[in-house]
């Protein structure tokens, strides 16, 4: 029983590994949020210049901020030394990027911000973005992937770095990430990458999200690691089974390997 369980566990691990592969490549793309930006302030003035609806949104954002963000970023987003930076001037762009991609809120200040599911529903994100945006800073960028060039995009992409998973990045998030430079990704200002080049990169990222996997099952387009796993767990495993089938021949030959000599070395 023990050994059967071991074998079963081994098979399960292999199967799970294959499933993980399938899941990784089958990450459904998030529905592309429309380029119509959230009602963020395009002028960097404070909350007072907005319309009534806008100021209500900012107020709601402030309330959410106090309960969810102020413990690290301070009651009016001024930052707390040793915990979190000030958000004055980071703009709606940064707020929208970090909240939409789940990089913020962090469970603790020492944790690295990596992409996860967003912690807030879209309406609340809009409110928080409006609030942070009211302190000024870059607005949410407008991106036109259709105006970009695919060849340029691939070329520019290679000059920088590859991020963990672009399967869920919308064109807007691509542009934001380029301008912000989250974690190990470098940041590229307007002088380094023009609007047109950002468009091209967004278009390129879009194209690799809708893969033209001409070779078949894409394995998440991760690289040689899943390829090696498939070679072992699929090819080698099935060939072993086939060898087992071909190798065992006459029924009375099975299980006749004897412990005749009984000379098990102790």
């Amino acid at each position: 029983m023990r050994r059967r369980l071991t074998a079963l566990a081994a098979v399960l691990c292999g199967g799970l590994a294959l499933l993980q592969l399938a899941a990784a490549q089958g990450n459904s793309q998030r529905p592309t949020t429309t380029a119509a930006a959230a009602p963020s302030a395009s002028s960097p003035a404070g909350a007072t210049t907005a319309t009534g609806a806008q100021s209500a949104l900012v107020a709601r954002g402030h309330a959410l901020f106090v309960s969810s963000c102020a413990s690290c970023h301070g009651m009016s987003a001024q930052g707390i030394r040793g915990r979190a930076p000030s958000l004055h001037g980071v703009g709606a762009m940064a707020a929208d990027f970090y909240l939409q991609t789940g990089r913020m809120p962090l469970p603790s200040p020492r944790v690295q911000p990596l992409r996860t599911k967003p912690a807030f529903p879209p309406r609340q994100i809009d409110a928080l973005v409006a609030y942070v945006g009211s302190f000024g800073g870059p607005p949410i960028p407008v991106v036109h992937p259709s105006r970009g060039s695919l060849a340029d995009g691939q070329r520019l992409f290679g000059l920088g770095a590859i991020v963990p998973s672009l399967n869920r990045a919308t064109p807007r998030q691509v542009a934001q990430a380029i301008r912000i430079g989250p974690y190990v990704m470098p940041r590229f200002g307007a002088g380094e990458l023009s609007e047109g080049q950002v468009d091209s990169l967004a278009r390129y990222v879009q194209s690799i999200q809708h893969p033209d996997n001409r070779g078949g099952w894409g394995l998440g387009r991760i690289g040689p690691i899943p390829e090696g796993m498939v070679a072992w767990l699929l090819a080698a495993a099935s060939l072993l089974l086939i060898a087992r089938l071909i190798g065992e021949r006459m029924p009375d030959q099975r299980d006749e390997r004897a412990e005749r000599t009984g000379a098990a070395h102790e």
Partner: protein
Amino acid sequence: MSSSDERDGGERRPGFARRAWQALVVIVLWRVAGLRRGRERSQELEDPSRRRTGAAPWAERLLLGLFGLIALAAGSFVALFVLDPNTQLLGLALGAALALVAAALVIAGRWLVPQETEVEDRPRLADEHEVEQVVQQGRAGLDGITRRRLLAGAAGAAGLGVTAAVAIPVVALGPGIEDQLQRTPWHAGRALVDERGKPILADAVTEGSFLTAFAQGADRENLGSPVVVVRVDPTTLRLPGERSGWAPQGIVAYSKICTHAACAISLYRSPLSPTTQSRGPALVCPCHYSTFDVLDGGGVEFGPAGRPLPQLPLRIDAAGALRAGGPLSGPVGPSWFEDKS
């Protein structure tokens, strides 16, 4: 607890369920014992050879069917190749044909042809008598030669010479080595340009961003050419004394080629804010994650790199563009014997 037990005047007698369970146990025990005993039974057979003829009746018909299917699959591969060479369909058609061929061969091998076990003697291989003959014959070939040791030694020396003569042409494979490995296109005054050849302005380098620059006029594929340019807060710089003028406005440049194994350094760990991340900005190589400190002249913080990243002294010219202030601080790329480090 057996509720199925029948109560009979205060005395419990096993019910049906109890009997069934005991029967099951007996059967299991019998099987277990059987598994263990079965191994011993056929040890007494001295001659394991046997032969069983007679094809299974279904085998021949199945094979005929398989051959037809194989022809079909192969034919569809041919048709697809000409009409619509879609990779997946081609793979399916040919793969199916081959799988059917495999099935046919195995079925033929196991159920069609006679099944035989035969015994063959293993050749002895070792034959001491023959060995002696060979040795004698060999030694006889040297009869009459007196200065054996001397001749052997001299032949060895001659052989070494010939081997060296045969091997030395490999040197022609490569041009002058030291020159190749040490030379870079950087010297004082050389402008830094981007991938398109446009000079890079100091203002274009923002804090937290990361730029790839090349030596103006040099071949971009030259390992010595690409550099990484970043801007940091000048007050946080900890450059060695002789490099104090190398970072105008806090803009620093380092070779983009990792000193571990020559990969292009394309990751930049720039902290979100000085108070939240414990370590300063660092260039990280994606291959084996050698991490180079940007603030202290490219020193290795983590990872297998054995030498710091060579730094390029910078200055800003009158037009606000970046220029090199001299050659790189060290050899580019991975270490080797003559790298003089």
